[in-house]
């Protein structure tokens, strides 16, 4: 399954991605996690299973929801988890959203 993280440039979320991948490896989960800029979401959205927004662009949640068109769950990453780069917690939240 594909978990996509979006922020303004995909820079700060990419740090979180690495931690999430580590957490996924520990639990032997087969997930693909990727971070990119919100601008290219429309090109990627068809393969997404979960889309998570960096909290700094939470004001764009409605736009992202429009792009996703209900094809998969969308949510904003918890601010503290994001700041503390808690890969395991964000991964758990993503899996819960996806219903797996």
């Amino acid at each position: 399954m594909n978990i996509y993280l979006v922020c303004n440039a995909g820079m700060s979320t990419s740090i979180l991605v690495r931690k999430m991948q580590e957490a996924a490896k520990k639990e032997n989960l087969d997930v693909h996690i990727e971070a990119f800029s919100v601008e290219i979401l429309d090109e990627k959205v068809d393969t997404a299973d979960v889309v998570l927004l960096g909290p700094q662009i939470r004001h764009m949640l409605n736009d992202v929801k429009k792009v996703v068109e209900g094809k998969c769950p969308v949510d904003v990453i918890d601010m503290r988890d994001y700041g503390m780069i808690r890969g395991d917690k964000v991964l758990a939240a993503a899996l819960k959203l996806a219903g797996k």
Partner: protein
Amino acid sequence: MGSVISSFERVMMPVAGRISSNKFLLAMRDAFSMLLPFIIVGSFFGILEWVVLDPWGTIMGENGLNLGHMFSGGLTGDAYKACGFVATMQMLQGLCNNVVTVGFGVFSFLLVAAFAYRLGGIWGGDKFSTALTALGAFIIITPQQIVGKAGDKMGAFSLDYFGNKGVLTALIVAAIASWIFVKLSKNEKIRIKMPDTVPPAVSQSFAVLIPVLATLSVFTIFATVLAQANLFGKAALNDLIYAIIQAPLMGFSQGIGFSLLYQFIVWFFWWFGIHGHNVTAAVQNMVYMPAQLANQAGDASYIFSNGFFEAGLMHIMGLVIAIFLFSKKASWRAVAKLGAPAMLFNIQEPIAFGLPIVLNPILLIPYILAPLANTVVGWLLVSSGLVPIFKYVVPWTMPLFFGGTIGTGSIMGGLLQVLWLAMDVCIYAPFVIASNKIKDTEAEEEEENTGAS
């Protein structure tokens, strides 16, 4: 305090949302980010051309490292000027300049294509045809003759119309041309239909024939009327827009007052955890980006440019250092340690959301005061000539000192960032010390445990 903040947030979130979701601004931001690689590559060759290869520049010249003296076999003065080494360097400089032209010289031309491409996508037209049509419109309103020194007219374009002076013209022309083109090409009544046996590529080109004709005709008529009217003594749209809109806008945005207001808004939004640069991208793209392009092209010396503000992103590093020096809070020290590597590359989010700075009443003052103080000091030092203007585009993730040094082409730019850092440490320090006395809330106790594990 808490209710004040939450009522503020209730106002700011929709504002930020509305600005960011404005289709028009979104397309503009996307267009600029499509062009960023070209600007950075152009800048890289600009640095090669003017810093590395220039026979009288920082590396080769006698006022710099003076390597040219060595490479040319010890020649100086006129003998150096005439030697083969200098000729080779100048030839290479010329080649580099060709690349600089791509990123800077014809920036507005590329912008027309990128912006129209994005607008075509938003309005539901064929993206590539929209981009091509808008380029056609831009060429139509651009003077296609230049007057030589002897007063003779030649068929040629002046690069002036394609570079930083044309940014606003490019945006306006691309928007109008795309709008007309997409509206018409979606109109079934004027579409030329081909039998099904005709290949799709051919029938597509016929389908857009009338919209292209109409769009380009509108611009031709407009350009003719404008040339006859000769408003303010300007016959071309580019000159007119530059004179009545872009030049005053640039002048206004270079005022210290406006620059401080811009910084204030950016960091105030960030304090709410909203991406301030994302919200204010329109201001950045319309004034501070062209300012940067003009600086690089050598057309002007604007103090406040993208490069200037991006060099100032490092102020949170002052907070990180202040925490290492003065904080007695284990949770803060843990976050600072966690966030420091990212902050080295000017990525502030782990600190901003982890500490958090966001919605933290103690840190509100220094978080806004530090960038404002930096702006004032930077403004004073650059306008006094002590630090050169920010000229070359560097990725915003370039670590401090290196970013300033490369951006200005001088070590003084790097030292300015070091000075800023020292100021920022002093600005943040009292607030870090004050927060030592504030008892940790439960949430932070939990932080301490996870931070230590």
